[in-house]
Protein backbone atom coordinates (compact mmCIF):
# COMPACT_ATOMS: atom_id res chain seq x y z
CA UNK A 1 0.00 0.00 0.00
CA UNK A 2 2.77 2.40 0.83
CA UNK A 3 4.02 3.07 -2.68
CA UNK A 4 7.08 5.24 -2.82
CA UNK A 5 5.00 8.08 -4.22
CA UNK A 6 2.88 8.16 -1.06
CA UNK A 7 5.95 8.39 1.13
CA UNK A 8 7.45 11.01 -1.20
CA UNK A 9 4.35 13.15 -0.89
CA UNK A 10 4.27 12.61 2.86
CA UNK A 11 7.84 13.88 3.08
CA UNK A 12 7.40 16.63 0.49
CA UNK A 13 3.77 17.62 0.24
CA UNK A 14 2.53 19.63 -2.75
CA UNK A 15 0.68 22.92 -2.28
CA UNK A 16 1.31 22.86 1.44
CA UNK A 17 0.83 26.18 3.22
CA UNK A 18 -1.82 28.88 3.32
CA UNK A 19 -3.24 31.60 1.10
CA UNK A 20 -4.00 35.03 2.52
CA UNK A 21 -6.33 36.35 1.31
CA UNK A 22 -8.31 33.47 -0.11
CA UNK A 23 -11.81 33.33 -1.56
CA UNK A 24 -12.74 30.56 0.75
CA UNK A 25 -11.13 28.33 3.26
CA UNK A 26 -12.48 25.37 5.17
CA UNK A 27 -11.22 22.94 7.76
CA UNK A 28 -12.43 19.66 9.03
CA UNK A 29 -11.02 16.79 10.96
CA UNK A 30 -11.59 13.14 11.32
CA UNK A 31 -11.77 12.95 15.09
CA UNK A 32 -11.51 9.19 15.05
CA UNK A 33 -7.90 9.40 13.90
CA UNK A 34 -7.05 12.99 14.63
CA UNK A 35 -6.42 13.91 11.00
CA UNK A 36 -7.06 17.60 10.30
CA UNK A 37 -7.02 19.34 6.94
CA UNK A 38 -7.62 22.98 6.05
CA UNK A 39 -7.88 24.08 2.45
CA UNK A 40 -7.48 27.63 1.09
CA UNK A 41 -8.81 28.41 -2.36
CA UNK A 42 -8.53 31.38 -4.67
CA UNK A 43 -10.97 31.51 -7.58
CA UNK A 44 -10.53 33.53 -10.79
CA UNK A 45 -13.18 35.45 -12.72
CA UNK A 46 -14.23 32.35 -14.65
CA UNK A 47 -14.94 30.55 -11.40
CA UNK A 48 -11.89 28.43 -11.88
CA UNK A 49 -9.49 27.44 -9.14
CA UNK A 50 -6.65 29.93 -9.54
CA UNK A 51 -4.67 28.76 -6.56
CA UNK A 52 -5.01 26.33 -3.71
CA UNK A 53 -3.07 25.46 -0.59
CA UNK A 54 -3.64 23.07 2.25
CA UNK A 55 -2.29 22.52 5.71
CA UNK A 56 -2.90 19.95 8.39
CA UNK A 57 -1.65 16.87 10.13
CA UNK A 58 -2.44 13.26 9.68
CA UNK A 59 -1.39 9.94 8.30
CA UNK A 60 0.49 9.40 5.08
CA UNK A 61 -2.68 8.52 3.24
CA UNK A 62 -4.59 11.66 4.14
CA UNK A 63 -1.57 13.84 3.50
CA UNK A 64 -0.71 12.30 0.14
CA UNK A 65 -4.30 12.52 -0.90
CA UNK A 66 -4.41 16.24 -0.06
CA UNK A 67 -1.31 16.83 -2.19
CA UNK A 68 -2.73 14.90 -5.13
CA UNK A 69 -6.15 16.48 -4.90
CA UNK A 70 -4.95 20.05 -4.71
CA UNK A 71 -2.64 19.43 -7.64
CA UNK A 72 -5.44 17.94 -9.70
CA UNK A 73 -8.04 20.64 -9.23
CA UNK A 74 -6.03 23.62 -10.31
CA UNK A 75 -7.80 25.27 -13.22
CA UNK A 76 -11.02 23.36 -12.67
CA UNK A 77 -14.32 25.25 -12.36
CA UNK A 78 -16.35 25.16 -9.17
CA UNK A 79 -18.94 23.10 -10.99
CA UNK A 80 -16.31 20.60 -11.93
CA UNK A 81 -15.33 20.42 -8.25
CA UNK A 82 -18.92 19.73 -7.31
CA UNK A 83 -18.89 16.85 -9.79
CA UNK A 84 -15.52 15.55 -8.56
CA UNK A 85 -16.19 12.09 -7.18
CA UNK A 86 -14.66 9.99 -4.47
CA UNK A 87 -13.66 7.52 -7.13
CA UNK A 88 -11.73 10.24 -8.98
CA UNK A 89 -9.60 10.85 -5.93
CA UNK A 90 -9.14 7.19 -5.05
CA UNK A 91 -8.03 6.52 -8.60
CA UNK A 92 -5.49 9.30 -8.30
CA UNK A 93 -4.15 7.66 -5.15
CA UNK A 94 -4.04 4.37 -6.96
CA UNK A 95 -3.95 2.10 -3.91
CA UNK A 96 -6.36 -0.38 -2.45
CA UNK A 97 -7.82 0.96 0.79
CA UNK A 98 -9.82 -0.60 3.58
CA UNK A 99 -13.00 0.98 4.92
CA UNK A 100 -11.28 2.75 7.79
CA UNK A 101 -8.51 4.15 5.63
CA UNK A 102 -10.86 5.37 2.90
CA UNK A 103 -12.02 7.99 5.37
CA UNK A 104 -8.44 9.20 5.68
CA UNK A 105 -8.05 9.32 1.92
CA UNK A 106 -11.25 11.27 1.38
CA UNK A 107 -10.87 13.87 4.11
CA UNK A 108 -9.30 16.45 1.79
CA UNK A 109 -12.09 16.04 -0.76
CA UNK A 110 -14.71 16.38 1.97
CA UNK A 111 -13.09 19.62 3.12
CA UNK A 112 -12.84 20.95 -0.41
CA UNK A 113 -16.46 20.22 -1.22
CA UNK A 114 -17.73 21.71 2.00
CA UNK A 115 -15.77 24.85 1.15
CA UNK A 116 -17.21 24.99 -2.34
CA UNK A 117 -20.73 24.54 -1.07
CA UNK A 118 -20.10 27.35 1.37
CA UNK A 119 -20.62 25.47 4.59
CA UNK A 120 -20.05 27.41 7.75
CA UNK A 121 -16.55 26.69 8.93
CA UNK A 122 -16.67 24.57 12.10
CA UNK A 123 -13.61 26.39 13.44
CA UNK A 124 -15.45 29.68 13.07
CA UNK A 125 -18.60 28.27 14.64
CA UNK A 126 -16.68 27.18 17.66
CA UNK A 127 -15.43 30.67 18.38
Amino acid sequence: MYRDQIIDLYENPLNFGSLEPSDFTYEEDNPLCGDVIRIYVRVDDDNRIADVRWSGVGCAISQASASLLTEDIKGKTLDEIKAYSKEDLLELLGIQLSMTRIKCALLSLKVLKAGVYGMPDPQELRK
Partner: protein
Amino acid sequence: MMMLDAKVIRNDFPILLKEVHRDKQLVYLDSAATSQKPQAVIEAMNGYYRNYNSNVHRGIHRLSEEATTAYEGARERIANFINAPDPACVIFVRNTTEALNLIAYSWGRRNIGAGDEILLTEMEHHSNIVPWQLLAEEKGAVVRYVPFTEAGLLDLPKFHEYLTERTKLVSFASMSNVFGTINPSKEIVKATHDIGALAVIDGAQSVPHLPVDVQDFDCDFLAFSGHKMCGPTGVGVLYGKRALLEEMPPFLGGGDMIRRVQLDGSTWNDLPWKFEAGTPGIAEGIGLGAAVDYLSNIGMGAIHAYEQFITGYALEALSEVKGIRVLGPGAAQKGGVAAFTIDGVHPHDISQLLDEDGVAIRAGHHCAMPLHQKLSIPASARASFYLYTTTEDIDRLVTGLNRVRKVFRLD
Protein backbone atom coordinates in the same frame (compact mmCIF):
# COMPACT_ATOMS: atom_id res chain seq x y z
CA MET B 1 3.20 -19.50 42.10
CA MET B 2 4.51 -20.93 38.87
CA MET B 3 4.43 -18.59 35.94
CA LEU B 4 1.78 -19.52 33.43
CA ASP B 5 2.91 -20.78 30.07
CA ALA B 6 1.38 -18.59 27.38
CA LYS B 7 2.39 -21.06 24.69
CA VAL B 8 0.29 -23.76 26.27
CA ILE B 9 -2.54 -21.36 26.89
CA ARG B 10 -2.63 -20.39 23.24
CA ASN B 11 -3.87 -23.87 22.40
CA ASP B 12 -7.13 -22.95 24.13
CA PHE B 13 -7.74 -20.14 21.63
CA PRO B 14 -8.66 -21.36 18.16
CA ILE B 15 -8.07 -18.00 16.51
CA LEU B 16 -4.47 -17.76 17.64
CA LEU B 17 -3.56 -20.67 15.42
CA LYS B 18 -4.86 -18.76 12.41
CA GLU B 19 -2.70 -17.51 9.58
CA VAL B 20 -3.76 -13.97 8.91
CA HIS B 21 -1.66 -13.03 6.02
CA ARG B 22 -0.16 -15.51 3.67
CA ASP B 23 1.93 -17.74 5.89
CA LYS B 24 2.07 -15.44 8.91
CA GLN B 25 0.45 -16.48 12.14
CA LEU B 26 -1.66 -13.91 13.89
CA VAL B 27 0.10 -11.75 16.45
CA TYR B 28 -2.86 -10.34 18.33
CA LEU B 29 -1.87 -7.31 20.38
CA ASP B 30 -5.27 -5.70 20.67
CA SER B 31 -6.71 -7.36 23.75
CA ALA B 32 -7.48 -4.07 25.46
CA ALA B 33 -10.04 -3.50 22.69
CA THR B 34 -11.39 -7.01 22.93
CA SER B 35 -9.83 -10.26 24.02
CA GLN B 36 -9.83 -13.51 22.14
CA LYS B 37 -12.11 -16.31 23.36
CA PRO B 38 -11.08 -19.75 24.51
CA GLN B 39 -12.76 -22.80 23.08
CA ALA B 40 -14.48 -23.44 26.43
CA VAL B 41 -16.40 -20.18 26.15
CA ILE B 42 -17.41 -20.77 22.54
CA GLU B 43 -18.53 -24.26 23.48
CA ALA B 44 -20.56 -23.10 26.47
CA MET B 45 -22.64 -20.93 24.17
CA ASN B 46 -22.95 -23.62 21.54
CA GLY B 47 -24.07 -25.99 24.25
CA TYR B 48 -26.85 -23.62 25.17
CA TYR B 49 -28.00 -23.13 21.58
CA ARG B 50 -27.74 -26.79 20.67
CA ASN B 51 -29.06 -28.40 23.82
CA TYR B 52 -31.22 -26.19 25.99
CA ASN B 53 -31.92 -22.91 24.23
CA SER B 54 -35.01 -21.43 25.84
CA ASN B 55 -36.16 -18.25 27.47
CA VAL B 56 -35.38 -17.97 31.16
CA HIS B 57 -37.24 -17.36 34.42
CA ARG B 58 -40.83 -17.91 33.43
CA GLY B 59 -40.91 -21.34 31.89
CA ILE B 60 -41.93 -24.51 33.61
CA HIS B 61 -40.59 -26.85 30.96
CA ARG B 62 -37.25 -28.55 31.21
CA LEU B 63 -35.35 -26.44 28.70
CA SER B 64 -36.38 -23.25 30.40
CA GLU B 65 -35.32 -24.61 33.74
CA GLU B 66 -31.97 -25.71 32.38
CA ALA B 67 -31.44 -22.32 30.79
CA THR B 68 -32.45 -20.49 33.95
CA THR B 69 -30.14 -22.64 36.06
CA ALA B 70 -27.23 -22.05 33.71
CA TYR B 71 -27.85 -18.33 33.44
CA GLU B 72 -28.32 -17.79 37.16
CA GLY B 73 -25.43 -20.12 37.88
CA ALA B 74 -23.22 -17.93 35.72
CA ARG B 75 -24.31 -14.94 37.74
CA GLU B 76 -23.27 -16.69 40.94
CA ARG B 77 -19.84 -17.55 39.61
CA ILE B 78 -19.34 -14.03 38.35
CA ALA B 79 -20.34 -12.74 41.79
CA ASN B 80 -17.71 -15.01 43.31
CA PHE B 81 -15.15 -13.87 40.79
CA ILE B 82 -15.36 -10.27 42.03
CA ASN B 83 -16.16 -11.39 45.57
CA ALA B 84 -19.60 -9.78 45.56
CA PRO B 85 -21.44 -10.60 48.77
CA ASP B 86 -24.56 -11.66 46.89
CA PRO B 87 -25.42 -12.62 43.29
CA ALA B 88 -28.36 -10.21 43.52
CA CYS B 89 -25.79 -7.41 43.31
CA VAL B 90 -24.62 -8.61 39.90
CA ILE B 91 -26.68 -7.14 37.08
CA PHE B 92 -26.17 -8.31 33.53
CA VAL B 93 -25.92 -5.47 31.02
CA ARG B 94 -24.51 -5.23 27.48
CA ASN B 95 -21.12 -3.78 28.36
CA THR B 96 -19.25 -1.40 30.64
CA THR B 97 -20.77 1.53 28.81
CA GLU B 98 -24.33 0.47 29.55
CA ALA B 99 -23.44 -0.22 33.17
CA LEU B 100 -22.12 3.31 33.64
CA ASN B 101 -25.14 4.81 31.88
CA LEU B 102 -27.42 2.76 34.10
CA ILE B 103 -25.87 4.37 37.17
CA ALA B 104 -26.09 7.82 35.61
CA TYR B 105 -29.74 7.41 34.65
CA SER B 106 -31.06 5.54 37.64
CA TRP B 107 -28.94 6.72 40.55
CA GLY B 108 -27.73 9.94 38.99
CA ARG B 109 -30.97 11.50 37.91
CA ARG B 110 -32.36 11.03 41.38
CA ASN B 111 -29.32 12.05 43.39
CA ILE B 112 -27.40 14.65 41.40
CA GLY B 113 -28.59 18.23 41.48
CA ALA B 114 -27.56 21.67 40.33
CA GLY B 115 -24.07 22.60 41.44
CA ASP B 116 -23.17 19.08 42.50
CA GLU B 117 -19.83 17.84 41.28
CA ILE B 118 -18.96 14.60 39.55
CA LEU B 119 -15.28 13.85 39.72
CA LEU B 120 -13.56 11.92 36.93
CA THR B 121 -9.98 11.77 35.75
CA GLU B 122 -8.31 12.97 32.59
CA MET B 123 -7.38 9.43 31.69
CA GLU B 124 -10.94 8.15 31.44
CA HIS B 125 -12.43 6.28 28.53
CA HIS B 126 -15.29 8.10 26.77
CA SER B 127 -17.69 5.62 28.30
CA ASN B 128 -16.79 6.98 31.70
CA ILE B 129 -17.07 10.61 30.57
CA VAL B 130 -20.05 11.05 28.28
CA PRO B 131 -22.74 9.56 30.57
CA TRP B 132 -21.69 11.99 33.28
CA GLN B 133 -21.57 14.93 30.89
CA LEU B 134 -25.11 14.11 29.78
CA LEU B 135 -26.25 13.82 33.38
CA ALA B 136 -24.50 17.02 34.40
CA GLU B 137 -26.05 18.89 31.51
CA GLU B 138 -29.51 17.71 32.45
CA LYS B 139 -29.11 18.57 36.11
CA GLY B 140 -26.88 21.60 36.00
CA ALA B 141 -24.12 19.70 37.74
CA VAL B 142 -20.41 20.06 37.09
CA VAL B 143 -17.97 17.47 35.82
CA ARG B 144 -14.41 17.88 37.01
CA TYR B 145 -11.33 15.96 35.96
CA VAL B 146 -8.40 15.02 38.13
CA PRO B 147 -5.27 15.51 36.03
CA PHE B 148 -2.52 12.98 35.53
CA THR B 149 1.15 13.59 36.04
CA GLU B 150 3.93 13.63 33.44
CA ALA B 151 4.51 9.99 34.25
CA GLY B 152 0.89 9.12 33.45
CA LEU B 153 -0.06 8.54 37.07
CA LEU B 154 -3.12 9.98 38.72
CA ASP B 155 -2.23 13.23 40.47
CA LEU B 156 -3.27 12.16 43.95
CA PRO B 157 -2.69 15.47 45.73
CA LYS B 158 -4.90 17.10 43.10
CA PHE B 159 -7.49 14.37 43.58
CA HIS B 160 -7.68 15.11 47.28
CA GLU B 161 -7.86 18.82 46.52
CA TYR B 162 -10.72 18.39 44.02
CA LEU B 163 -12.66 16.25 46.44
CA THR B 164 -14.94 18.66 48.28
CA GLU B 165 -18.30 18.61 49.94
CA ARG B 166 -19.78 19.45 46.53
CA THR B 167 -18.52 16.13 45.14
CA LYS B 168 -21.35 13.61 44.99
CA LEU B 169 -19.73 10.95 42.85
CA VAL B 170 -16.23 9.86 41.89
CA SER B 171 -15.89 7.59 38.89
CA PHE B 172 -12.55 6.32 37.67
CA ALA B 173 -10.90 3.49 35.77
CA SER B 174 -8.98 1.23 38.09
CA MET B 175 -6.76 0.59 35.08
CA SER B 176 -6.31 3.02 32.20
CA ASN B 177 -6.77 1.63 28.69
CA VAL B 178 -4.04 3.88 27.25
CA PHE B 179 -1.39 4.38 29.92
CA GLY B 180 -2.13 1.04 31.50
CA THR B 181 -1.83 2.83 34.83
CA ILE B 182 -3.19 0.85 37.73
CA ASN B 183 -4.85 3.40 39.95
CA PRO B 184 -4.96 3.07 43.76
CA SER B 185 -8.61 2.05 43.91
CA LYS B 186 -8.80 1.44 47.62
CA GLU B 187 -7.32 4.79 48.51
CA ILE B 188 -9.58 6.63 46.08
CA VAL B 189 -12.70 4.87 47.32
CA LYS B 190 -11.78 5.52 50.93
CA ALA B 191 -11.21 9.23 50.40
CA THR B 192 -14.42 9.43 48.41
CA HIS B 193 -16.40 7.82 51.19
CA ASP B 194 -14.76 10.06 53.75
CA ILE B 195 -16.41 13.09 52.20
CA GLY B 196 -19.70 11.19 51.81
CA ALA B 197 -19.67 10.66 48.06
CA LEU B 198 -20.12 7.46 46.07
CA ALA B 199 -17.30 5.71 44.25
CA VAL B 200 -17.76 4.05 40.88
CA ILE B 201 -15.01 1.90 39.42
CA ASP B 202 -14.73 1.43 35.68
CA GLY B 203 -13.26 -2.05 35.72
CA ALA B 204 -13.29 -2.62 31.95
CA GLN B 205 -9.52 -3.05 31.97
CA SER B 206 -8.86 -4.16 35.52
CA VAL B 207 -11.37 -6.99 35.95
CA PRO B 208 -9.93 -8.95 32.99
CA HIS B 209 -6.35 -8.55 34.15
CA LEU B 210 -6.10 -8.21 37.93
CA PRO B 211 -7.70 -9.80 40.94
CA VAL B 212 -10.63 -7.52 41.81
CA ASP B 213 -12.44 -7.76 45.12
CA VAL B 214 -15.39 -5.40 45.47
CA GLN B 215 -15.57 -5.89 49.20
CA ASP B 216 -11.93 -5.08 49.61
CA PHE B 217 -12.18 -2.03 47.34
CA ASP B 218 -15.45 -1.15 49.06
CA CYS B 219 -16.59 0.55 45.84
CA ASP B 220 -20.26 1.37 45.47
CA PHE B 221 -20.41 0.27 41.86
CA LEU B 222 -18.15 -1.64 39.51
CA ALA B 223 -18.68 -1.87 35.75
CA PHE B 224 -17.01 -4.29 33.35
CA SER B 225 -17.38 -5.99 29.96
CA GLY B 226 -17.38 -9.68 29.13
CA HIS B 227 -15.72 -9.34 25.75
CA LYS B 228 -12.48 -8.04 27.25
CA MET B 229 -12.11 -10.98 29.63
CA CYS B 230 -12.35 -14.01 27.36
CA GLY B 231 -16.14 -13.76 27.33
CA PRO B 232 -18.57 -13.08 24.53
CA THR B 233 -19.63 -9.74 23.11
CA GLY B 234 -23.02 -8.43 24.17
CA VAL B 235 -22.66 -8.94 27.91
CA GLY B 236 -21.23 -6.92 30.75
CA VAL B 237 -21.82 -6.50 34.43
CA LEU B 238 -22.86 -3.80 36.80
CA TYR B 239 -22.06 -4.67 40.38
CA GLY B 240 -23.66 -2.42 42.98
CA LYS B 241 -24.01 -2.41 46.73
CA ARG B 242 -27.31 -3.96 47.60
CA ALA B 243 -28.71 -1.05 49.60
CA LEU B 244 -28.05 1.32 46.73
CA LEU B 245 -29.54 -0.93 44.10
CA GLU B 246 -32.58 -1.51 46.28
CA GLU B 247 -33.42 2.14 46.53
CA MET B 248 -32.64 3.03 42.92
CA PRO B 249 -35.56 3.36 40.53
CA PRO B 250 -35.56 1.00 37.55
CA PHE B 251 -33.72 1.99 34.41
CA LEU B 252 -35.36 0.14 31.53
CA GLY B 253 -38.99 -0.93 31.86
CA GLY B 254 -40.48 -4.11 30.45
CA GLY B 255 -40.76 -7.84 30.83
CA ASP B 256 -38.93 -9.60 33.69
CA MET B 257 -38.17 -6.44 35.66
CA ILE B 258 -41.70 -6.10 36.95
CA ARG B 259 -43.55 -7.72 39.77
CA ARG B 260 -46.94 -6.62 38.66
CA VAL B 261 -48.17 -4.50 35.75
CA GLN B 262 -51.50 -2.81 35.86
CA LEU B 263 -52.95 -0.27 33.52
CA ASP B 264 -52.40 2.48 36.05
CA GLY B 265 -48.89 1.58 37.15
CA SER B 266 -46.45 -1.14 37.95
CA THR B 267 -44.30 -2.50 40.75
CA TRP B 268 -40.82 -3.90 40.41
CA ASN B 269 -39.24 -7.28 40.66
CA ASP B 270 -36.53 -8.13 43.19
CA LEU B 271 -32.84 -7.59 42.53
CA PRO B 272 -31.09 -8.26 40.24
CA TRP B 273 -34.01 -8.65 37.83
CA LYS B 274 -35.37 -5.18 38.56
CA PHE B 275 -32.60 -3.93 36.29
CA GLU B 276 -32.83 -6.61 33.62
CA ALA B 277 -35.70 -5.67 31.36
CA GLY B 278 -36.70 -7.97 28.54
CA THR B 279 -35.09 -11.17 27.43
CA PRO B 280 -31.48 -10.94 28.57
CA GLY B 281 -28.37 -12.06 26.75
CA ILE B 282 -28.82 -15.63 27.91
CA ALA B 283 -26.12 -17.30 25.83
CA GLU B 284 -23.89 -14.33 26.62
CA GLY B 285 -24.39 -14.61 30.38
CA ILE B 286 -23.64 -18.31 30.19
CA GLY B 287 -20.59 -17.57 28.06
CA LEU B 288 -19.32 -15.04 30.56
CA GLY B 289 -19.79 -17.62 33.30
CA ALA B 290 -17.55 -19.98 31.32
CA ALA B 291 -14.99 -17.20 30.85
CA VAL B 292 -14.86 -16.57 34.56
CA ASP B 293 -14.39 -20.29 35.15
CA TYR B 294 -11.59 -20.31 32.63
CA LEU B 295 -9.83 -17.34 34.20
CA SER B 296 -10.35 -18.61 37.74
CA ASN B 297 -8.86 -21.95 36.88
CA ILE B 298 -5.69 -20.26 35.78
CA GLY B 299 -5.90 -17.74 38.60
CA MET B 300 -6.09 -13.99 38.32
CA GLY B 301 -2.95 -13.65 40.41
CA ALA B 302 -1.02 -15.78 37.94
CA ILE B 303 -2.43 -13.85 35.02
CA HIS B 304 -1.46 -10.54 36.54
CA ALA B 305 2.03 -11.80 37.35
CA TYR B 306 2.48 -13.06 33.82
CA GLU B 307 1.28 -9.79 32.35
CA GLN B 308 3.75 -7.89 34.47
CA PHE B 309 6.48 -10.06 33.06
CA ILE B 310 5.37 -9.65 29.45
CA THR B 311 4.84 -5.91 29.88
CA GLY B 312 8.32 -5.53 31.28
CA TYR B 313 9.67 -7.53 28.38
CA ALA B 314 7.73 -5.39 25.90
CA LEU B 315 8.78 -2.04 27.37
CA GLU B 316 12.36 -3.18 27.28
CA ALA B 317 12.11 -4.35 23.68
CA LEU B 318 10.23 -1.27 22.51
CA SER B 319 12.80 1.04 24.05
CA GLU B 320 15.20 -0.24 21.38
CA VAL B 321 13.03 1.21 18.60
CA LYS B 322 14.39 4.59 17.57
CA GLY B 323 12.12 7.60 17.94
CA ILE B 324 9.57 5.72 20.03
CA ARG B 325 7.83 7.27 23.00
CA VAL B 326 5.86 4.92 25.21
CA LEU B 327 3.03 6.64 27.09
CA GLY B 328 2.37 6.13 30.76
CA PRO B 329 4.31 4.76 33.67
CA GLY B 330 6.89 1.98 33.83
CA ALA B 331 6.04 -1.70 34.02
CA ALA B 332 5.73 -1.74 37.80
CA GLN B 333 2.69 0.54 37.85
CA LYS B 334 1.06 -0.65 34.72
CA GLY B 335 -1.08 -3.42 33.28
CA GLY B 336 -0.46 -5.05 29.92
CA VAL B 337 -0.77 -1.99 27.70
CA ALA B 338 1.91 -0.14 25.75
CA ALA B 339 0.64 2.89 23.89
CA PHE B 340 3.28 4.73 21.92
CA THR B 341 4.13 7.15 19.17
CA ILE B 342 7.03 7.13 16.74
CA ASP B 343 8.35 10.47 15.56
CA GLY B 344 7.56 11.02 11.92
CA VAL B 345 4.96 8.29 11.44
CA HIS B 346 1.27 8.59 12.10
CA PRO B 347 -0.11 5.77 14.27
CA HIS B 348 -2.48 4.79 11.46
CA ASP B 349 0.41 4.15 9.19
CA ILE B 350 2.19 2.17 11.88
CA SER B 351 -0.85 -0.01 12.39
CA GLN B 352 -1.39 -0.51 8.68
CA LEU B 353 2.18 -1.56 8.04
CA LEU B 354 2.21 -3.89 11.04
CA ASP B 355 -0.96 -5.47 9.73
CA GLU B 356 0.90 -6.47 6.58
CA ASP B 357 3.17 -8.43 8.90
CA GLY B 358 0.21 -10.11 10.60
CA VAL B 359 0.60 -7.98 13.73
CA ALA B 360 -2.67 -6.52 15.03
CA ILE B 361 -2.38 -3.43 17.17
CA ARG B 362 -4.72 -0.46 17.49
CA ALA B 363 -4.20 3.13 16.35
CA GLY B 364 -6.25 6.17 17.22
CA HIS B 365 -7.43 7.81 20.39
CA HIS B 366 -8.65 4.55 21.96
CA CYS B 367 -11.79 6.35 23.09
CA ALA B 368 -9.67 8.59 25.27
CA MET B 369 -9.58 11.87 23.38
CA PRO B 370 -9.12 14.06 26.47
CA LEU B 371 -6.00 12.10 27.42
CA HIS B 372 -4.56 12.59 23.94
CA GLN B 373 -5.51 16.27 23.86
CA LYS B 374 -3.71 16.76 27.12
CA LEU B 375 -0.61 15.15 25.65
CA SER B 376 -1.09 17.25 22.49
CA ILE B 377 -1.00 14.23 20.25
CA PRO B 378 -3.82 13.43 17.85
CA ALA B 379 -3.50 9.69 18.30
CA SER B 380 -1.27 6.89 19.46
CA ALA B 381 -0.50 3.32 18.55
CA ARG B 382 -1.31 0.75 21.19
CA ALA B 383 -0.14 -2.80 21.72
CA SER B 384 -1.96 -4.62 24.50
CA PHE B 385 -1.31 -7.98 26.06
CA TYR B 386 -3.13 -10.83 27.71
CA LEU B 387 -2.45 -14.25 29.11
CA TYR B 388 -1.82 -15.66 25.63
CA THR B 389 0.75 -13.05 24.59
CA THR B 390 4.23 -14.51 24.09
CA THR B 391 7.67 -12.94 23.91
CA GLU B 392 7.65 -14.02 20.25
CA ASP B 393 4.64 -11.76 19.72
CA ILE B 394 6.60 -8.86 21.16
CA ASP B 395 9.60 -9.69 19.02
CA ARG B 396 7.45 -9.68 15.90
CA LEU B 397 6.04 -6.32 16.94
CA VAL B 398 9.50 -4.85 17.29
CA THR B 399 10.65 -6.28 13.97
CA GLY B 400 7.56 -4.78 12.40
CA LEU B 401 8.20 -1.38 13.91
CA ASN B 402 11.70 -1.38 12.55
CA ARG B 403 10.29 -2.12 9.11
CA VAL B 404 7.89 0.82 9.55
CA ARG B 405 10.86 3.07 10.16
CA LYS B 406 12.49 1.75 7.02
CA VAL B 407 9.40 2.27 4.82
CA PHE B 408 9.14 5.80 6.15
CA ARG B 409 12.84 6.34 5.46
CA LEU B 410 13.54 7.25 9.06
CA ASP B 411 16.81 5.38 9.38
